[in-house]
């Protein structure tokens, strides 16, 4: 897994590359929490365009960040969701509580 982040005026965009599972849950959680704590007024966008696989360990990280930010009136959105990832997010009901950005995030980021 690799993580690349971009800081924009109102949001933190984090592009993740790799599988989101038990192995990568801890490093991903730590990286996201560090960004959330550092940029205290920004929303979080997680770009999953290069994520092929996610399971409940990976989902847990996303949902955990959603909860942390919601307490402070900040939001989490997901972008670039692939079909294999969408199936899992759907089943977990995550798409009903977290906003999904359908347009390519890298263009929108300009």
């Amino acid at each position, binding site marked *: 897994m690799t993580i690349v982040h971009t800081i924009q005026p109102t949001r933190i965009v984090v592009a993740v590359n790799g599988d989101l599972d038990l*192995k990568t849950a801890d490093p991903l959680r730590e990286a996201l929490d560090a960004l959330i704590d550092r940029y205290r007024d920004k929303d979080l966008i997680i770009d999953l365009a290069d994520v092929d696989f996610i399971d409940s360990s990976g*989902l847990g990280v996303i949902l955990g960040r959603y909860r942390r930010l919601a307490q402070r009136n900040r939001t989490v959105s997901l972008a670039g969701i692939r*079909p294999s990832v969408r199936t899992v997010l759907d089943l*977990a009901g995550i798409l009903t509580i977290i906003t999904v950005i359908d347009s390519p995030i890298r263009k929108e980021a300009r």
Partner: protein
Amino acid sequence: MNRMSLRFISVSDNVGLARVAVAALASQADFSLQDIDEIKVAVSEAVSNAIVHGYPGRSDGEIQVTGMLDAGGLTVTVEDWGVGIEDITQARQPAYSQDPERMGLGFVFMESFMHGLQVESTPGQGTRVEMHRLVTISGELSRDAQ
């Protein structure tokens, strides 16, 4: 018509290894790519549970994954010789987890993505999960020229 058995230790690196091995076996049958994605999730959940819950704090626990392909589809078992589960019915409830950091969706995903899930466990002795996935042939009989 084919079978494999994979043994490894309880470190999180091996979740991916197990997924990839079962996916390689499954790809020998007439599963679609989406079928295989779903099978990978179920395997990932069962193996993650063996690591996290079966062997808490241990990286030397043995885990065995088997896969069997026959005309009826794919059967996967994931077995550990760890702490076991006291109350299986409770453990299988959606959103039940002993670990506040986890979602309690592992068994839900295994049930949703597979066609049949059996869990056997003895406290202090270990846990064995068996999952089955039917091949549903849609459209053409063979996907490639092999």
